[in-house]
C-alpha cells in the first residue's frame, strides 16, 4: 500500500488534487468546490476506495478547514453595504427568511421530517451567490444587495437556530442553554474593545496590517481570535462553526476588509485548508446509501429546495418584475458550504442518517451548479 511509504501520502494526494481541480473546473465551467467534492467522491469510499477521509491528520485538517471556511464566510460579509442601504434591506431579508422557514417547516412536517431538515433546507450560500451577482454586474445594485443580504440573513439565522436546536436537543431547556450567551457577550466585548483600540492605538495596530511584517503578527492575531471563539463555543456547547463565523464577522465589522491581512487569510483558507474539507466531504459521501432505495430523496429535496426559496422571493415583485423575482428565488436556492456543514453536524448528532446526509451533499452539488446558471440565463437579455 502506498500509504505505508509515508504518513504524508494522503495529504500529498489531496493537495495535488486540490491544485489540479480548479484548473479542470475552470475548463468545464463548474465551481471549484463542486470539482473538489466530485474528486473526493471518486477517490473516496464510494468509487475507488483509495482513501476513507479518516486518515490521521486528514480528518483533523478537514475539520479545521471547515471551521476556517466558516471564519472566512463571516469575514466575507460586506457590512458596509448594510450601512449604506440601511435596515430596510435587513427587514426584507428577514421577511424572506421567515417565510422560507415557515414553508420549509410545513413541507417537512407533511413529509414526516423534523425541524432539523426544515432548517437544512432554509440555508443559502453567500459564497455561490456573490460571484454570480458580481458576474452579472449587479453587485452594487439594490436588487443584487437584496439577494445578498437575504442570503446572509438565511445563513446567519440558520446557524443560530442550529445551535439553539442542538442545545435544546442535548440538554432541553436548561441553564446551560444560556451559556451560549457567553459567546455573544464575548462577541460584543471584542467588537467594542476592538473599536476602542482602533481609535486609541492606531499606530500600534497599523503595522499588523502592513505587508511584510516579519512575524506576520496580523495572521497570528486572527488565528488567536478564531481559536478563542472556537474553544469558548466548544466549552459552552455551542457549535464551533458559529464561534468561527462570529470571529470572522468581528474582523469584517472592525476592519471592513480590503486588507493585505485578509488576502493572507484567504490564501491560507482557500489555498490549503478548505479544499481538504471539501475533498474530505466527497470522500465520506455514500453514493451507495443513496442508491439503496433512497435515490428518490434527491429529486424530492431538489423540488422543496426551490419551492422554499422561490415562493418567498415573490416579495421582490413589489419592486421588480416577476422574472427578476423568480430569478432571485432561483439564485437564493443555491446551497453549498453551510448545507454540507449542517449535513455533517446532523449526521454526527443523529438528526439525519447517512442516506439523507449524502442526498443533501448531492443537492448542494446540483444547486451550486444549476442555480447560478439559470440566474445567468434569466439575465442574459439585460
Amino acid at each position, binding site marked *: 500500500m502506498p500509504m505505508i511509504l509515508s504518513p504524508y501520502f494522503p495529504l500529498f494526494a489531496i493537495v495535488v488534487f486540490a491544485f489540479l481541480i480548479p484548473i479542470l473546473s475552470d475548463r468545464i465551467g463548474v465551481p471549484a468546490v463542486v470539482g473538489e467534492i466530485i474528486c473526493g467522491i471518486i477517490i473516496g469510499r464510494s468509487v475507488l476506495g483509495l482513501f476513507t477521509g479518516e486518515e490521521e491528520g486528514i480528518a483533523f485538517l478537514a475539520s479545521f478547514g471547515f471551521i476556517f471556511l466558516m471564519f472566512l464566510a463571516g469575514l466575507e460579509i460586506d457590512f*458596509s*453595504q448594510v*450601512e449604506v442601504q440601511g435596515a430596510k434591506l435587513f427587514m426584507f431579508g428577514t421577511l424572506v427568511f421567515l417565510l422560507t422557514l415557515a414553508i420549509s417547516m410545513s413541507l417537512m412536517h407533511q413529509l414526516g421530517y423534523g425541524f432539523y431538515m426544515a432548517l437544512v433546507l432554509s440555508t443559502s450560500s453567500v459564497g455561490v451567490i456573490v460571484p454570480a451577482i458580481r458576474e452579472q454586474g449587479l453587485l452594487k445594485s439594490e436588487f443584487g444587495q437584496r439577494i445578498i443580504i437575504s442570503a446572509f440573513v438565511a445563513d446567519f439565522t440558520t446557524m443560530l437556530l442550529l445551535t439553539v436546536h442542538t442545545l435544546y436537543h442535548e440538554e432541553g431547556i436548561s441553564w446551560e442553554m444560556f451559556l451560549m450567551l457567553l459567546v455573544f457577550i464575548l462577541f460584543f466585548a471584542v467588537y467594542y474593545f476592538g473599536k476602542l483600540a*482602533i481609535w486609541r492605538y492606531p499606530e500600534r495596530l*497599523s503595522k499588523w496590517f502592513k*505587508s511584510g511584517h516579519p512575524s506576520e503578527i496580523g495572521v497570528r492575531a486572527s488565528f488567536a481570535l478564531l481559536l478563542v471563539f472556537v474553544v469558548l463555543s466548544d466549552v459552552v456547547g455551542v457549535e464551533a462553526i458559529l464561534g468561527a463565523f462570529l470571529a470572522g464577522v468581528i474582523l469584517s*465589522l*472592525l476592519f*471592513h476588509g480590503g*486588507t493585505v491581512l485578509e488576502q493572507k487569510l484567504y490564501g491560507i483558507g482557500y489555498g490549503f485548508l478548505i479544499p481538504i474539507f471539501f475533498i474530505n466531504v466527497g470522500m465520506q459521501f455514500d453514493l451507495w446509501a443513496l442508491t439503496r432505495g433512497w435515490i428518490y430523496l434527491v429529486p424530492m429535496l431538489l423540488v422543496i429546495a426551490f419551492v422554499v426559496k422561490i415562493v418567498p422571493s415573490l416579495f421582490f415583485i413589489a419592486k421588480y418584475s416577476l422574472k427578476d423575482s423568480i430569478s432571485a428565488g432561483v439564485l437564493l436556492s443555491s446551497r453549498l458550504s453551510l448545507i454540507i456543514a449542517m449535513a455533517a453536524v446532523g449526521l454526527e448528532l443523529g438528526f439525519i442518517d447517512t442516506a439523507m446526509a449524502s442526498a443533501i451533499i448531492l443537492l448542494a452539488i446540483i444547486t451550486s451548479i444549476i442555480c447560478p446558471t439559470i440566474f445567468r440565463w434569466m439575465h442574459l437579455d439585460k
Partner: protein
Amino acid sequence: MKNIIVGGGRVGRELAAQLPESVIIEINAGKREKLSELAGVDVIIGDGSDEELLNRVGLDNVRAFILLTSNDDVNYRAAAIAKKHGVPKIIVRVEDPEDRERFQKLGTEYIMFPTKIVANLIGDLLHSGAGETLSLFNKLLVPILSENTVEKAFKEALLIASVARAEVTAISSTDIDNQKMKSQAKEMGVPLKILLEEEKLGSIIKKHLHYPGCIIIDHVKEHSYYPDCVIIDHEELGILDKLFKRSVVLRLIKCASCPVLVARTFRYYERIIALLDSSEISKSVGRYSVQMAHLCGADLHLLILENVPGERIDGIKKMGEKGNVRIIEKWIDGNPMIEVAKEVKSGDYELAVIPWRGTGVVGSDLIRKIVNDAPCSVLTVV
C-alpha cells in the same frame, strides 16, 4: 497676561484695538504717534526679532505672540525666539506660501497666509463675474446652543463666511447676547441674520431628538431658508448619551441634506485632510475639500483609501489647480480604518472632510467616532 504684537501696520493696529492689554513693537518710529492713540496699548519702537529687546519687553507672562510684519525673515526670527522662551501661543502672518514648511518645522501653531487668501478672493471675484466659480458656501447656518457657541461655532462660521463672502444665519434664543454676535459679524464684514427663539435652542433640540426630521432644519425651512452648510459646536457626550444615541450633532448630520461642520478649530485652516474612496460621494468630498482649501489658502491632503479611478483624482487636482490649492496625495498601505484613525488623530490637520454615510472602506462607526472625538474640525459631506 499680555499680548505682544510685532508689526504696527494696519492689521496690527486693528488687532491691538480689539486686544487692549497689548504691546506693539514697531520698527518704524514714524508710526509711533498713530499707534499711541490706541487706548491701553504700549508702543515700543525697535526690531521685533531682536532677542534683547524681546527680553526687555518680557516673554514670560505672554498670552499670545503675534507676528504681523510683512517680512517673513523677521517673523521667523521672532517666532524662533518666542518658541525658545516657551510662549504658549504664537500666531504668524506669512507672506510667501513657500515659507510654510520653514514655519511648520519651527513648530508655530498658527500660520496665516493673507497673500494667498486675498489672491484667491480676488481670483474668485474675477471668475464669478464670468460665472465660472460658484461658491459651495453661500449660506451658513449656526444654531446657537449656548453662550459658548458664540465663541466657537459662530466664530468659525464668521471666519469661513468672511473668506467665502457668505451670509450667516444664526438661530438664537433670548438668553444669548445677540448684540455681541451682531458686532462680531459687523467687524468681519459678514451679513448676519438672527432668528430668535424664546426657549433655549439646546432644550428645543433635546426635546425633539426623536422627531423624524431635524427640528432646526425644518424650522429654517419654514422661513424658506435652505443653508449650504450648518456649523455646529463640538458636543461632549457621556456614556449614556452614546449608548442611547442622544447626540444632537449626529442627529443633525443624519437629517441635514447639506454638509455639516463640527467646529473645533476656531481659526483659518492651514492643512485639510479629505478621505477619498471609490464611492460616488467621494466626488463631493473632493469638491468641498478643494473649495475649503481654496477659501482658507490651505494645503489639501488627499488620503486615498482604495483604488480610486484615476480620472476622479485628476478631476480633484484640476479643481485644485484652478483654485490655487496645493494638493498632496497619500495612498494608504495597510488597513483603511486604522490608517484613517491614525491620520485624523495625528493633530496635523485643522479640518477633516469626510463622507457621512459608510462608504465601504470606512465604517459608519469610525465616521461617528471622528465626528464626536477628532481633535480637528470635521466637515461631513452627504
